[in-house]
């Protein structure tokens, strides 16, 4: 009898054999490269048969994570580098994003509080949405700092089947 993990793994890879699929995407973080890599990841998980809802959620979350790396962590880095890897685990896709940029302030993830929008037009927020979006759409969000790397890890749930 297959465990849940093995059943999901088989369906995840049903379109392409495991050794034919890239396990990770390494790139130089820039706005242009983020666009390109988001497309690569999207095509890859789409080909693997992941449900459309999870694909949309992943693209939204990953865009925010990668934009933060470009705009903050690696903004002043002479040789910035980022790597995305992912694999199914249980009923979710587990994603890991590593970058060689500066550490999170206080080595903590931002709280990402919801911002008031029931305010006069002139007071509407134009930014600061990213971490709230990330926190709302992910599970098991974790941050780790090694001697020279930031490592962000999170899960995106697959849709319930049946």
């Amino acid at each position, binding site marked *: 009898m297959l465990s849940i993990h093995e059943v999901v793994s088989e369906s995840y890879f049903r379109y392409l054999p495991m050794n034919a699929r890239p396990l990770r995407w390494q790139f130089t973080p820039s*706005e242009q490269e983020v666009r390109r890599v988001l497309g690569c990841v999207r095509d890859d998980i789409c080909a693997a048969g992941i449900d459309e809802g999870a694909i949309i959620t992943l*693209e939204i979350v990953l865009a925010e994570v990668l*934009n933060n790396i470009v705009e903050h962590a690696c903004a002043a880095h002479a040789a910035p580098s980022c790597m995305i890897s992912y694999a199914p685990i249980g009923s979710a896709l587990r994603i890991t994003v590593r970058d060689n940029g500066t550490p999170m302030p206080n080595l903590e993830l931002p709280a990402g509080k919801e911002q008031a929008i029931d305010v006069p037009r002139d007071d509407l927020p134009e*930014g600061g*949405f990213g971490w709230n979006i990330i926190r709302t759409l992910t599970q098991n969000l974790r941050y780790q700092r090694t001697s020279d790397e930031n490592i962000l890890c999170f899960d995106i749930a697959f849709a319930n089947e049946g």
Partner: protein
Amino acid sequence: MQLEQRTHADAMVITVTQDRIDAMGAIQFKDQMRALTNEGPARVILDLTGVDFIDSSGLGAVVASLKQMRADQCLELAGLSTTVEKVFRLTRMDSVFTIHQDVPDLGTCNA
């Protein structure tokens, strides 16, 4: 960032021809919106039918576009994809804008 516009009797429809409003194109989007809406009619409809994806920078640029319009002007949105609608809903910005499934029928075009 390419924006096209057409003006009807009392409304302007601005169509985004690129399929993403993201960090890379957000500033140009905001600047072009300002130029188009500056002396435009009170009712402005942003046609997002061709836009598959928006990130929080793109969302911020849409909000900024609203804020830089005159007090008598309103900004409505049309043709939101699943992803775009999700980003607006997550940030609750879907309550700030009037959102149409399709661009409303505005009668004949002044061109």
